C-alpha cells in the first residue's frame, strides 16, 4: 500500500437541521454504509452559515468542506437556503481569488427523504478528496503567516 491509499481525508459538513441532517439520519435508519470521514455540524438552516466557517474548517485541517441544506423551495424557514445560495455565489468568487482550492468545497441540496443521496455525496467527496490528497497548500500558507 502506498501512502496515498492510507490517506484518510477529514471532511467537515455544515448541514441544516431540517433536511440534510434528517437525510443523514435516514441513511442511518436504512443502514446505508459510507466512509466515516465526515463530521457533521448541525445548524438550524443553511442561511445560518457564516461562510467564515468554511475558512475555519480548513484552519482546523479539514481536507474538504460540505455545505448542504434543503432543496430550493423546501426550506423550513421559507427562504434561508436562497440566502445561503446567493451569499455562496459571492463568497465563492472571493475564495477563488484568494486561491482556495474550490474542488475542496462542495455545496449540495439533500432532503430529509434522500438518505441515499447523502450516502452517495459523502462517498464521492471522500473518494475525490482522497485523490486530491491532504490540503497541504492551505496549511503551508497558514504556517507561513504564523511565522
Amino acid at each position, binding site marked *: 500500500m502506498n501512502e496515498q491509499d492510507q490517506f484518510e481525508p*477529514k471532511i*467537515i459538513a455544515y448541514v441544516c437541521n431540517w433536511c440534510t*441532517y*434528517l437525510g*443523514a*439520519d435516514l*441513511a*442511518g*435508519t436504512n*443502514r*446505508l*454504509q*459510507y*466512509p*466515516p470521514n465526515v*463530521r*457533521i*455540524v*448541525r*445548524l*438550524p*438552516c443553511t*442561511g*445560518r*452559515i*457564516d*461562510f467564515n*466557517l468554511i475558512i*475555519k*474548517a480548513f484552519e*482546523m*485541517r*479539514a481536507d474538504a468542506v460540505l455545505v448542504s441544506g434543503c432543496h430550493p*423551495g423546501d*426550506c*423550513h*424557514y*421559507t*427562504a*434561508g437556503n436562497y*440566502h*445561503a445560495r446567493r*451569499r455562496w455565489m459571492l463568497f465563492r468568487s472571493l475564495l477563488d481569488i484568494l486561491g482556495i482550492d474550490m474542488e475542496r468545497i462542495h455545496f449540495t441540496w439533500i432532503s430529509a427523504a434522500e438518505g441515499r443521496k447523502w*450516502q452517495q455525496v459523502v462517498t464521492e467527496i471522500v473518494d475525490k478528496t482522497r485523490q486530491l490528497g491532504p490540503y497541504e497548500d492551505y496549511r503551508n500558507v497558514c504556517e507561513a503567516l504564523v511565522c
Partner: protein
Amino acid sequence: MARIGVFICWCGENIARNVDVEKVAEEVGTLPGVRCSVTYKYLCSDPGQALIREKIVDERLDGVVVASCSPHMHLKTFRTAAQNAGLNAYLVEMANVREHCSWVHEDRDKATVKAIDLVRMAVAKVLRSHALEPIRVPVTKRAMVIGGGVAGIQAALDIADAGYHVVLVERDPSIGGKMAGLSETFPTLDCSQCILTPRMVEVGQHANITLHTYSEVEAVEGYLGNFKVSIRKKARYVDINKCNGCGECWNVCPSKKNLSEFDFNMGMRKAIYVPFPQAVPARPVIDNDACIKLTKGKCGLCEKKCQPGAINFDDKDELVTEEVGAVVIATGYKPYDIGKEQENAQLSGYGEYGYDEHKDVIDSLQFERIVSASGPTGGQIQRPSDGGEPKTVVFISCVGSRDDAKGLSYCSKICCMYTAKHAMLYKHKVHDGVAHVFYMDIRSGGKSYDEFVRRAIEQDEAQYHRGRVSKITGENGKLIVRGVDTLAGEPVTIEADLVVLATAMRPADGVRDLARKLNVGYDEFGFLSESHPKLRPVETNAAGVFVCGACQGPKDIPEAVAQASAAAAKVQVMFSRDELAREPEVARVDEQICAACFTCVRTCPYTAIEEAEIRDRNDKLVKRTARVNPGLCMGCGTCLAVCPSKSIDLEGFTEQQVYAEVESLV
C-alpha cells in the same frame, strides 16, 4: 471549572456493536470540564433517565451530553429529564453516534474514533451553552378564517361552536365558494346546495362569527397568538345593515347583460345583484363597472326604489383591523382556464380544444351550472350556442392535469369522479342521449367511489374511451371530436353537440400574495405547504397559521371538510392555554454594538427584526439598533450570517458554540 456529564448509550447492540462505547467514555472522560463519563444500555428508558437525573444531582452537573441517537429522536426526552433534576433544559446537547455513526460505519475502530469526535464536539458546544427559558406569549383567543368555501365554513363553525370568536373573511359578496354552485355531489348524488346552504345560514347567524364578505386581507402584522390583520372591505354601495334584501333594487336595474360570476359566465346578472338566491349575507352588491349611475352618472333607479335607503353611491373601500391569535387559510381553488392568457407561458396549451372559440366547448364548473336546478337554464341541459338539447356529449378528463408538456404535472384528483357524475346526471336528464368520456386512467379511490364509476358505465351507459382527444373542430353546428381509443387501438371520431373539459384544479388567484403576507410557503404550482405531509398536515411553518381545503392541494369535499375540522381542532388546542411557550432558541441583537445597517431587517424571512431606537432618560436619541421580536423569530439564523458587525447571535447555535465545535476537531 465546568462540570459536564457525558452519558453514552449502547442502544442495546445498536451502538455498542460498532462503537467501543467504553473506550469513548474513557477518552472523553479526560476532556477538560468533563466531570463524569458513563455508559448505559438504554439511556432513554426509565432507569436510563434516572441515571442521568441522579448524576446531575450527585455530581452537581452544569451541563449534559448524551451520546446516543438523533436529537430529532430524543433531545426532548433528555432535556425533560435534566429539567426534572433541576438542570436547565438547554444545557443538554446530544451527539448522534447511532444514525450518523454506528449504523453507517462497519469498521469498529474508525467508528469509535468518529464517535469520540462527535462527543468532543458536543462537549465543546455544551460548555458554551446558556440556560434559557421558554418564551411565553399571550394568546388572543379569536381566530381568523380566510375563505368562505366549504372548508372555511367548516373550520369557522367548529371553532365558533367550541366557544371562541371567529372572523371569517370572504372575497366574494357571499360565502359558499365553489360548492354552492355545484349541482349534485358524488358519490351519493345529494344536492350540493341542500347540504351547504344550511351551514351557510348557520355561519350568518352564529353569535361567535363575524363575517366580512366582499373583503380581502390587506396586511398582516404580529405573530403566533397575536396577529393584527388589516382587512379591506371593498365598496359594496349597499349598506347591509339597512338593507332588508327585498329585491326591489335588482328588479328595476336596467343593466342586465353582465356575465354572472356565480354561473361561470353561463348566465347573466344585473349590475346590482345577489350572486345567488341563498347567498349569505342575502344582501346585494353593486358592480361598479356595470352600474350606469357609477359609470355614467345617471340612472339611480335602485336608490329611488330602495325603501330603507340602503343604497350609497359614495361608498368607499374601508380598512378594518382584527386582532386574532390564529389564522386558518381556506382559499380554495380555481379551474385551469385554458385557452386564455396565462401568467405562465408553459400553461398556454390546449388551443386544439377550441375553448373560447366554440361556444359549445365548456368546462366542468360551467356544466355544473347548466345541470343545476338553480342554474341559468333551470336544470334543463341546453347547449350554450342555440339552446338545443345536446344528444351527444363528450367529456374529456385530465385537461391540464398530469401533463408535463403543456399543463400541470399533478393529478387534480376529483375529475375522474365528477366526470362520471356528469355523465350520469346528463343521462338522467336526456334519456336518449349518449355520454362519451375520454380518460387516461380512472382514479376512483375512496369510499363507494369505484362503485359509482362502475354505475355510470354499466347502468347509465357512459361510453368510456381510454385515450386522448387530439382536436376539436366545428362543422355544421356540430363539434367533431377526434381522438383515439388505445384499448381498441383505433382512432375515434365523434360528432358531438357539447364538449365538457375536466380542467385541472389550480390554487385560487392571489394565494401567493396572501401566503407571503402570512409567511407561509407554497410549491411551484402555488399550493400552500403544510409543515409535514403526513404528521403535520394542517400546520404551516408559520406558527399559528393553519391550512385546509384545496389551497393546500387538489381534494374533494369530504377531504376538505376533514382537513378543515383538523385545522379547527389545532386552533382549539392553541386556545386551550392562556400562554403559549415557544422555543427560546431565537436570535438576539447586542444593541451596544449594532451599527444599525438593518441588513438583518431586510433579510429576515419572518419580519421578526425591527428598527428600534435607544433613548436616554431625557428622551434623547442615543443610538439606533435592530431589535428581534422573540415572538416572531423562528430561529433560522439568516440574520446572523449577514450581520457585518457580528452583533446578532442565535441562542442554541451561537457563534461561540459553532466555532468551538469546529475547533474541537483539530
